[in-house]
């Protein structure tokens, strides 16, 4: 994928340098298993509290939204990313900077709609689903629905109202 704007190339390099510097003092990284297992415990608890999967999905989305609203501040403060000029740039920033920064993965961007207003993010190795086995009776549970909420909340704060599925 091409990084087009010069400004963003700079900030991307600055970001990489910063992250490499951080590796020497691994202070800001928690054990990822703690995060994954905690998320698993949360979903399990929600499944106990709500009767159908749709309600669980809705709740996860809502919690994600609240996280996203706050996370965007942390993201803007630490990443030096400026305002995106178009939606494609937004997609790039989400996939290559935000996901990399918080989950250590880079999802691929596909399925652009002809109008350029819709795309898919494909997570090839989603860290949230490590150790997870879904029982058969939860077929309509969207396990990682929290992420949709996070993205929705974060982007709404930078004035983009979007629909996530």
């Amino acid at each position: 994928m091409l990084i087009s704007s010069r400004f963003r190339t700079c900030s991307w390099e600055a970001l990489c340098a910063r992250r490499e510097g951080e590796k020497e003092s691994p202070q800001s990284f928690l054990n990822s298993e703690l995060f994954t297992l905690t998320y698993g415990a949360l979903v399990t608890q929600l499944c106990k509290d709500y009767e159908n999967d749709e309600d669980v999905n809705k709740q996860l989305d809502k919690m994600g939204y609240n996280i996203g609203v706050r996370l965007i501040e942390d993201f803007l403060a630490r990443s030096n990313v400026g305002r995106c000029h178009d939606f494609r740039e937004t997609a790039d920033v989400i996939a290559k900077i935000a996901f990399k920064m918080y989950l250590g993965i880079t999802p691929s961007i596909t399925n652009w709609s002809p109008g350029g207003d819709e795309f898919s993010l494909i997570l090839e190795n989603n860290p949230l689903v490590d150790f997870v086995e879904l029982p058969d009776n939860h077929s309509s549970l969207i396990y990682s629905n929290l992420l949709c909420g996070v993205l929705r909340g974060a982007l709404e704060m930078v004035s983009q109202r979007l629909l996530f599925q």
Partner: protein
Amino acid sequence: MADEALFLLLHNEMVAGLYRAAEQGEGENGRCTTKLESMGFRVGQGLIERFTKDTARFKDELDIMKFICKDFWTTVFKKQIDNLRTNHQYLAFTCGLIRGGLSNLGIKSIVTAEVSSMPACKFQVMIQKM
């Protein structure tokens, strides 16, 4: 690799979400603490299984407590846990985490937390003899 900010926000939201749900109807606040504690318990059980798969068998309870305080704690939090915004409802999860870890090492315990001066917090572990 997961970023610390992400865990802090997730944990915040777990607490807030549970209390929000309780306010809207079912149950009293005490149930929320229990729920948080039991979520921590599950996570503690999972983590201890992952962490001890290559360690030697523990000699006694003291040995186990040392492992929990040193290895377990630092692997999970990378430092002394000084930045979870501490107050009692926020500590329920962590109490459960310790209890779950101990439970899978064969120690039945009661873990309580106490905050006397703000950044510091004290966990008390009571071991129940079987």
